[in-house]
């Protein structure tokens, strides 16, 4: 039917546009479809998708998390500094713990203060990001550290950063594993549903027995934890941990979630869609780089894509 076609076009326009872009790129620059490039894409995809998956839960729950960049830098500098004193496993463990703890701290500020709206959460998390970033700078005195400066063994980080299993990079395997967990968590568990309901109407959810505060704590903690995972994957990949690592990730993550089709109004969305969205964001910058488009024009394209995505989301909503 014509109507059904229209609906499908609306639903998948962003996807179609990017497929178009991929086709054009592949024609102009055949190297785009080489296996080497696919490996590139897979690697670049890792750190972004981790943050974006965490961000998805926050957005479904009716908030936006701007603190991920600050968390990422804090986790990176602390983890790296701990490898020598407590070993790589311990360092990774503490790093992830710091990520989760930072997310948890965000949620405490939010639940204690009763910041129930998206905008309130946005600006509180912005302040938290400034705070975490400042702490990272304070911790390192502004110095960038490198994996190779340390004395102990850092094979785990090498493995995460550049190891492969078959055709997949290790970071991609980590992603698949986390995706599976988060997908099941979101779609089949009680808490997953509770997150959606909370995002839909916090007052009503509370009055029907949903533990809203607990839900809020969970989503922010997930986001903080995922930022921690992302941070470790990222600095394993680039082998340095600077106190400004992660800058710009919050925007790209939001872009990935929104382009993927999760509604910013809260209540609805899915991690699976975010995977698609993150894919698109990475593909976009990859193909633009290959086509020799300047970073200036890439910005323009990104902004347009974001506006287009939100406009489509709205069309879908209205039908």
């Amino acid at each position, binding site marked *: 039917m014509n109507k059904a076609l229209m609906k499908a076009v609306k639903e998948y326009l962003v996807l179609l546009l990017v497929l178009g872009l991929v086709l054009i790129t592949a024609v102009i620059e055949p190297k785009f479809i080489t296996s080497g490039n696919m490996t590139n894409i897979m690697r670049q995809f890792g750190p972004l998708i981790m943050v974006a998956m965490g961000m998805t839960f926050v957005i479904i729950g009716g908030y936006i998390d701007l603190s991920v960049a600050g968390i990422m830098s804090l986790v990176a500098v602390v983890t790296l500094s701990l490898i020598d004193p407590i070993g790589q496993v311990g360092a990774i463990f503490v790093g992830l713990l710091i990520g989760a703890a930072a997310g948890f701290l965000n949620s405490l500020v939010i639940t204690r203060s009763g910041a129930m709206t998206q905008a309130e959460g946005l*600006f*509180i998390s*912005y*302040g938290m990001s400034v705070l975490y*970033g400042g702490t990272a700078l304070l911790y390192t005195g502004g110095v960038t550290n490198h994996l190779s400066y340390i004395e102990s063994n850092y094979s785990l980080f090498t493995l995460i950063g550049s190891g492969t299993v078959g055709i997949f990079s290790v970071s991609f395997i980590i992603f698949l594993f986390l995706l599976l967990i988060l997908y099941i968590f979101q779609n089949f568990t009680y808490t997953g549903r509770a997150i959606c309901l909370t995002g839909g109407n916090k007052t009503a959810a509370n009055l029907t027995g949903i533990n809203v505060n607990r839900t809020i704590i969970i989503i922010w903690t997930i986001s903080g934890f995922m930022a921690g995972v992302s941070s470790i994957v990222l600095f394993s990949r680039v082998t340095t941990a600077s106190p400004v690592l992660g800058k710009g990730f919050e925007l790209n993550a939001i872009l990935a979630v929104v382009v993927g089709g999760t509604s*910013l109004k809260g209540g609805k969305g899915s991690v699976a869609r975010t995977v698609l969205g993150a894919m698109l964001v990475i593909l976009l910058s990859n193909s633009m780089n290959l086509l020799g488009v300047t970073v200036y024009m890439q910005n*323009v394209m990104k902004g347009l894509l*974001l506006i287009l995505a*939100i406009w489509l989301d709205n069309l879908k909503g209205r039908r």
Partner: protein
Amino acid sequence: MKNKGLGKTITTSIVKYKAFFAVLVMLLFMLFPRTNFYSVFNILDMLNSASILMVVSFGLTLVILAGGIDLSVGGSLVMGGILTILSMNVMPMWLAILIGTLSGAVIGTINGYIIVYHKTEPMIVTLGMSIILTGIAQELTDAHPISAEGLSFMMIGNGRIFGTIPNLVVIMLVVFAVFYVILRYTQFGRNLYAIGGDYEVAKYSGINVRREKAATYVLAGMAASFAGVLLSSKLNSASSIYGDQTALTVISGIVVGGTSLAGGVGGVGRSLVGLLVFAIMENALNMLHVDAYIQQVIRGIVIVAILALDSYDRKRRREDV
């Protein structure tokens, strides 16, 4: 019947006028350490530095009052500066300034059109717009800072009236007065409170909600690009990276001042005080020689604390009723 203790009344008013009290506390505190904080030069300098962001905040306050948000003011600010300086080479200065200022109106019109007439999420549309504007600004300047020839343009942002009061402070006060009158004494201004308070109700009451809500974005864009003109004049330079932090800084100031992000409550006077909080804080921290990284930590804590206090105040009142 209600028997509120004096203590409670005081707490309530402190919470309500928290920005004002924060200013007061900081001013009192700075009496003690031996610094040059209380010199005419420093006080005027502080106001001078703050005035550009204040101009941005006045326009943005209208948007927030009407229940919207604009994260693209940084982009408008950048475009205002760049277009003014680029145009100045080929036309008279006043025309260039006009073009720079109007660029924000054009940006605001596009924002307003997409947000209001297509009912889209303002936060994301303006975020997208700010990314686009950064790209355009980089394209226009090849990401190089550009500066104007000659000194006349620079004089606007660096001159002083009667040799003492900085031009920028005077201009800021004039812009403030304009926006104050709009909000307080015009139909349009009052309608914004209704639109932000309850969009549907405003609509059903016969207010042309779409046009007026869209107009707030135009005004915000214009105020921001005018601020960009002022900034370029002050620095005698325009660059694609000047606007990076503008939106978040200014909005934090507006909220700290007491304009509700939920819309419908607040005003430009509050925004002025809110931005003053940050201006005084930055100045005092520098005066006290606080380490740069500790400054950042303190800034984060202050933003979080004041916003959380704001939310907490609303929560308390919610539970009261």
